[in-house]
């Protein structure tokens, strides 16, 4: 059976984007396997978060950082990406 995915209109940048998300989820799975329990803790937001919550907050926040950058600064998103990485590190460290 020949499965045709051309209707999904794949491009290399979007494929790389989804591959990165997929690798992050695999990484979280491996992390959970090695250190089970999700490492729940109460951070600066003053409510309990697990590793999965922190990844979700990081990804959602990064999406808004990119959108805000596009709207307020311009189309060069490398700085937005750098800012998102810093933000994600901060979320995993302090939230």
């Amino acid at each position: 059976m020949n499965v045709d995915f051309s209707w999904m209109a794949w491009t290399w940048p979007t494929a790389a984007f989804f591959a990165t998300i997929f690798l992050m989820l695999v990484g979280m799975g491996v992390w959970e396997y090695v250190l089970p329990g999700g490492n729940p803790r109460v951070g600066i937001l003053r409510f309990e978060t697990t590793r999965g919550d922190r990844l979700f907050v990081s990804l959602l926040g990064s999406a808004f950082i990119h959108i805000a950058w596009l709207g307020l600064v311009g189309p060069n998103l490398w700085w937005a990406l750098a800012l998102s990485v810093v933000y994600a590190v901060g979320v995993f460290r302090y939230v």
Partner: protein
Amino acid sequence: MEKTLNNKAWFLVLPVLVLVAFSAVIPLMTVVNYSVQDTFGNNQFFWAGTEWFQELLASSRFWAAIGRNLVFSGIILAIEVPLGILIALNMPRKGWGVPVCLVLMALPLLIPWNVVGTIWQVFGRTDIGLMGYYLNALGINYNYVQNPIDAWVTVIVMDVWHWTSLVVLLCYAGLVSIPDAFYQAAKIDGASRWAVFRYIQLPKMQRVLLIAVLLRFMDSFMIYTEPFVVTGGGPGNSTTFLSIDLVKMALGQFDLGPAAAMSLVYFLIILLLSWVFYTVMTNYDSGR
């Protein structure tokens, strides 16, 4: 925490993963792919990068639609949640009145969206509609086809009529699950009606209220069929919500790239607000 001994249980999750993949993940991936390209049909796509997102973020039409959506959802929640609680508190807990009330409450929920729209479209007409005709006969200048405020009032009243029942049924389920011992203890303590509501009934309804607020917010933020049938987004653009604008763009103008970019921003806003609602309400619950 102990390590999970048997990881085979994960296989039980596979069917739902496959289902979600086909119903949500694959379509979402396709939307992401469309959002960075342009097409003129025939399955041919051209790279556009972030152009559609920039265009969208600079568009006053988009921000106006978001504003209308937020105002609509805010009004809907402010009316339906207190009204739903009030009705649920006054519904009978025993006897023949229970099934009668439950069936009456469930009736609006059983009517399809487009039928609800048609009912209110006819109901509000000034020539043949019961409401429209008699409001004008009473001297109230009501015309939802020409007046934006009348159009908004009609759409809001229609939504309240259609969906308050959902809040009522959820709150009622929360209320009937409260054991009689709670009320007896309150009576012994001489608690007022307000104290019973504030310290027994409201906390016990917390979880179902969370579901009600989330469902009503997401549903009202995605509303399409009813306002489309009643007002078609008019007069002018006064009731053009994001979903109506999105359909106009994607199917009316066949601008798949800009429509996909708009869908993604729309999706992210819903995701963010739902997460905020969920987090605030669940943590309020556990923090008490």
